[in-house]
């Protein structure tokens, strides 16, 4: 999954370290960043997250005039809820797939640890903060996922967890109170309603800034990242991979 292989098409393996423009065509190597499965996961997440937010917010603000304009009849409320529930089931399936895959990989001891928070992330964040307040001009060297990206993943991981659990509780409150205290129902309602807005704001401010405004990063759709981006934004990972490659090549030569 994380095995970064240079895209075969642009350049043969032997010219790996050269970027020679030939006939006015600049050949840029790319690295695989996301597998096809991960890209699909993101796409499904994007669609379900957006539909849940769009169908949930009018329900949260039912007292507001704009919401009542949208939900102009009881039938519309029912329809909106149905869309919300369908999207919720899709997202729940996605979560189960994601977790199932992680567990399978873990059992096979093949789960890459790139997304796990490490002590290095704290150090990187501190270095980054110093950079942001002009105490240093050096940005930290990031691995495959920088601490911002890890933070995005984990905030949404737990956010979706809260949304899922609380959502199913308020969808089937009678069932859940068979084995849970009644107090979980209003608590779930509050959590669901608040977390939705928090997650929405978080995605718009944090995620959209980092992938759209700071620089347009479409790697989650294309699956690839250019060598230049790799060198600039994931320096540590780039160095690790090129070192690995160099060793591989050396070994190949010596044989």
């Amino acid at each position, binding site marked *: 999954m994380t095995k970064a292989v240079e895209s075969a098409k642009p350049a043969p393996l032997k010219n790996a370290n050269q970027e020679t423009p030939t006939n006015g065509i600049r050949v840029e190597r790319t690295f695989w960043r996301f597998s096809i499965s991960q890209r699909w996961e993101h796409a499904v997440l994007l669609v379900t997250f957006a539909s849940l937010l769009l169908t949930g917010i009018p329900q949260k603000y039912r007292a507001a005039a704009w919401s009542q304009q949208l*939900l102009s009849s*009881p039938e519309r409320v029912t329809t909106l809820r149905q869309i919300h529930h369908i999207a919720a089931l899709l997202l729940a399936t996605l979560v189960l797939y994601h977790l199932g895959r992680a567990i399978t990989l873990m059992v096979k001891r093949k789960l890459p640890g790139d997304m796990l928070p490490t002590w290095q992330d704290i150090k990187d964040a501190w270095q980054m903060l110093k950079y942001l*307040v002009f105490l240093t001009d050096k940005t930290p060297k990031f691995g495959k996922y920088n601490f911002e990206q890890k933070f995005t993943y984990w905030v949404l991981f737990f956010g979706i967890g809260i949304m899922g659990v609380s959502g199913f509780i308020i969808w089937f*409150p009678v069932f859940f109170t*068979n084995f849970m205290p009644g107090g979980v129902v209003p*608590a779930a309602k*509050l959590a669901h309603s608040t977390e939705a807005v928090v997650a929405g704001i978080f995605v718009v401010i944090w995620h959209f800034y980092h992938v759209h405004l700071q620089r347009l990063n479409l790697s989650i759709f294309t699956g690839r990242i250019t060598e230049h981006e790799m060198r600039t934004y994931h320096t540590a990972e780039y160095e690790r991979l090129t070192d690995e490659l160099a060793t591989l090549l050396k070994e190949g030569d010596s044989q």
Partner: protein
Amino acid sequence: MADNRFSLKILLLVSFILVGILLAELSLAKPVQAGGSTQETEEYCLSCHGNPELNLTLPDGEILSLYISQEMLDASIHSPAGIECQACHTEITTYPHPEIQYQTARELARAYYLACRKCHKSNYDLAQDSMHARVAEAGNLSAPVCTDCHGDHDVRPPDQPRALISNTCGKCHSEINEVYKQSIHGGALINEENPDVPVCTDCHGVHNIQDPRTALFRVLSPDLCAGCHANPELMGKYGLSSDVYSLYETSWHGVDIAVYKASWPTIWHDSAVCTDCHGVHNIRPHTDVLSSVHPDNLQATCAKCHPGASPNWTGAWTGHNKISIDRTPILFYVDAFYSSFIDIVLWACIVYVLLQIIRATVDKVRRSLP
């Protein structure tokens, strides 16, 4: 200036004349009203109708007593105020009377009450827009007319004492009245002559009583309860919380009902209103074992709408209480989590992104400088 003073004088003069005329009229009118308990025409009518034996056999065989006692008239509000027999019995001017046209006593009553309209037009008109009038139109002649509630020759203020009202309604709605008498409201009215508890008319209206079984009545009903139960002064007298309504409004049930009230008041909606849990005429305090909201009965009350609700379910209801660590600990901690920790996280993210924007902008400007 001079003109103004002149017109002021005229105004004063005209006012004096008007007041004078008014006083004169009043003093002229007085003797008629204060002419003793017995009026001239009343005396004349009672010379026959004062006989307890006097009666009339109607075409349907019913015997209608024609006896009117002087005491009854004296106790009424009309006779001492100088309102004579003829004021209502307009077609009878002398003896012998014109032939009675009615087949039954009920028919006669339903015809005579039209006389009320002469003086009490607004209330009469209101009554025409009532459930009672509609039932009558549909053919039920037992539906009450003015005199059925107010009395006829013995007409008196209907709310003195206040408990008279529920008994008046109870003449027909006897079962409901019995239930009401057992309720916290009815009990306080009958036993303590409590001036604050609602009588029938406080919730149902007076003359234009509407069908309380409609979707519209249902969505508006919490406002009826709120009329008293959201009044801190009134509730304070009885040690009750006046926040129950405002908290209900923020609950799942309350928000739902508010939306229906605002947008679709005539579409039936099952989200609970006050009466679904507390009862209607049989409302009792939650400490009463017979109350539908007594802790022992709560699960069954919830299960009316939430079939299969377990004993835990009742703990889900928070619609009358503020978030508190004792009563709703889970809700309390979730609320605390979002209002402190998550707030801080979100603000940290915002500040971080702002710092990034600033640094990126500064770097860009620096690079563009020669």
